C-alpha cells in the first residue's frame, strides 16, 4: 500500500526545548491515523513539519513522496492536495461563511466555474447551508468548526490533517463531526491524520494510532495491537469469607505467582493483571484450591484510554 505520509527519524528543537526526538511513522493511503499525546508532547510541531511550516533539524518528512518544506512552485501544487483543520479555526469574523469559502476556494485555484458549486456543496456537507450568508462573528464555536472543515474540503484534498477537530465542542457537535469524518473517509478515498486528546474519538475513528510523549513515539499500531501491548486484566468476583474478604495466605500466594503482574482487591472484586492471558485458567484453579468461592470471572476489555494511561504510567516509571 502506498504511503501518503512518511516520517523518519525526525528531530526538531526550539532553543533548549527538544520538541521531537527521532519520530518515525508512516500513514498509508485511505488510512485514518490517530496521533495521541499530552499538551506539549510534540503533536503541533509534527503537524507543522507535515505542512512544511517548519524545517526539520534532522530526519525526513515526505508527503506524497515529496519534502513539503521548500517554498517553491512544486510545493504550492502539493499544498493543493492537502486539507487542514488546525486546533483553532482562524476565521475572519467580518466575512459571511459563504464569502469566506469563496475566498478560500479562489486561493486554492479552484476553477472559476466550479467555485460556487463547491462552496454550496461544502456548506451542505457540514450542515451549514442555511447559515452560509450569516456573518462568521455570529456563529457558535461548533458552527465555526464546521466551517473550518468545509474550508478544508473545498480543494477536494487527498490528505486531511485534523488537529483536535472537536476540542471545546458540545457532545452533539462532536458526534456530528465524527459522523462527518467517517462519511468523508468512506466516500472520498481520503487519508486522514488526526490528533486528539479525546481517546474515545480516536478509538472510534482511527485505524492506527501512535502515542507521542516528550517528542518520542512511545507506541504505535492498531487499537487492537495497542490493547494487546498492555497486560490483560481478569476481574474476579467472589463470595467473601467471614472475617476477611480474602485470607492473607491467598494474597501471599497471589503475590508469589510468576504470571501475575499486579492485583488489586476492591471489596468483593479482585482485579488481576496477568503477564499472559493464557494463564487465566491456572489462576482460577489456584484460587478455587485455596478455598475462594468465585461467583463471576470476566476479562476486562481495555479501552484505548486504559491503554493510553498505562503506557504513559510505564513511560514515566521508565524515565
Amino acid at each position, binding site marked *: 500500500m502506498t504511503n501518503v505520509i512518511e516520517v523518519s527519524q525526525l528531530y526538531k528543537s526550539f532553543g533548549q526545548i527538544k520538541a521531537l526526538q527521532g519520530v518515525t511513522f508512516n500513514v498509508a493511503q485511505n488510512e485514518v491515523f490517530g496521533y495521541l499525546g499530552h499538551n506539549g508532547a510534540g503533536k503541533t510541531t509534527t503537524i507543522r513539519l507535515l505542512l512544511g511550516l*517548519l524545517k526539520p533539524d534532522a530526519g525526513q518528512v515526505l508527503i506524497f513522496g515529496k519534502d513539503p518544506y521548500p517554498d517553491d512552485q512544486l510545493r504550492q501544487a502539493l499544498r493543493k492536495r492537502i486539507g487542514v483543520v488546525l486546533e483553532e479555526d482562524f476565521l475572519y469574523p467580518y466575512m459571511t461563511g459563504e464569502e469566506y469559502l469563496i475566498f478560500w476556494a479562489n486561493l486554492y485555484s479552484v476553477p472559476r466555474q466550479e467555485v460556487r458549486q463547491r462552496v454550496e456543496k461544502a456548506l451542505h456537507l457540514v450542515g451549514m447551508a442555511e447559515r452560509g450568508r450569516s456573518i462568521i462573528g455570529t456563529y457558535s464555536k461548533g458552527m465555526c468548526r464546521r466551517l473550518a472543515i468545509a474550508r478544508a474540503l473545498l480543494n477536494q484534498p487527498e490528505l486531511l490533517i485534523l488537529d483536535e477537530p472537536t476540542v471545546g465542542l458540545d457532545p452533539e457537535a462532536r458526534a456530528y463531526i465524527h459522523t462527518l469524518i467517517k462519511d468523508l473517509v468512506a466516500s472520498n478515498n481520503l487519508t486522514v491524520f488526526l490528533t486528539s486528546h479525546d481517546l474515545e474519538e480516536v478509538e472510534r475513528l482511527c485505524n492506527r494510532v501512535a502515542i507521542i510523549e516528550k517528542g518520542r513515539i512511545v507506541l504505535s499500531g492498531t487499537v487492537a495491537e495497542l490493547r494487546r501491548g498492555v497486560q490483560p486484566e481478569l476481574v474476579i468476583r467472589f463470595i467473601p469469607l467471614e472475617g476477611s474478604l480474602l485470607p492473607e495466605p491467598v494474597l501471599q500466594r497471589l503475590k508469589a505467582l510468576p504470571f501475575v503482574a499486579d492485583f488489586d482487591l476492591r471489596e468483593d472484586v479482585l482485579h488481576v493483571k496477568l503477564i499472559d492471558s493464557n494463564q487465566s485458567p491456572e489462576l482460577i484453579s489456584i484460587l478455587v484450591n485455596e478455598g475462594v468461592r468465585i461467583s463471576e470471572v470476566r476479562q476486562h476489555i481495555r479501552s484505548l484510554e486504559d491503554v493510553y494511561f498505562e503506557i504513559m504510567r510505564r513511560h514515566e516509571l521508565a524515565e
Partner: protein
Amino acid sequence: MNWPNEHSPLIVLICKEIRFTARRPIYWISSIGVITFTVWLSVSTGANAIKEITVVSPQLARYMVNLFPQMILLLYPFSTFLMISLYLFMEMFTLEKVQKRLELLLITPLRANQIWLGKCLAIFALVYPFVLVTDFAYVGLWGYVCYEMTGVLPSLVMPALVVGLIGGPLLAFALISFFGLITLLISRSDIAQTTAFFTSFGVTFGGSYALGWIGRHMAPGTNLVTWPTAISILVMVALSFSVLWILQDRLDKDQIVRTIG
C-alpha cells in the same frame, strides 16, 4: 483576451484585503479624518502666515504663496500615507500574526513572500488614492485661498509635484512594507506596530518643524524642491525597494512560524 480559468492566489489575497477593508466604516472614517485634518492644517497655517507677511512685505508674501505648496508636497504625502496606513498595517500584519491567521495562510498555495507582497500591495491600493485626494484637495484649496487673499494664483513647480504624487507616497509605502516584513520575523509584532506609529507622528511633526526652519532661512526667490531634490528622493525610493526585494527573497517560513508561537 482569454482570462485564466483559475485565480492567482496572490491576486485573490490582494482583492480580499481590499474588498473587506473597503467595507469597513473605520477605514473610511480614519482616512477621511486624516485627509481633512491634513488639508485644513496645511491651508490654514499657510493662510495665516501669508496674511501676516502681506502686511510687512507683499513681495515676500507672493514668494511664500509659491513656497508653501513645495513644503507641503515634500512632507505631507509621505506622512499622510503613513498615518492612513497605520490602521491597515495593524489589521493586515499585526493582528493577522497575533491572532495566528497567518499560520493558516502559510499552508495555502501562497508563498511566504507572496503573503507579504499581497498585503503590502493591498495597503498601497487602499491608501494611495487618499494621498492623491489630499494632494489635489490641498492644491485646489490653497490656490483658491491665495487668489482670494492676494489676487495671485500660486505656481506649482514640477519637481514638487513629482515628489508629492510619486516620491513621498512611495517612500512611505517602502517604510510600511519594511515594517510589515519585520512584523513577520519578530515574535513581538506589537513592537513593529508601535515603532510604525511613532515613526509616522515623529516624521510629521519633526518634518513640519524642520521645513519651517528651512523656510525661514532660505534665500528669497529660490525653490525648496528642485529637480536634484526630486531625483534624490526617487533614488531613495529605488534603493528602499531594492533592499526590500533582497529581504523578502529571504523570508523563511520556519522563522515566521517560530515567532508565531
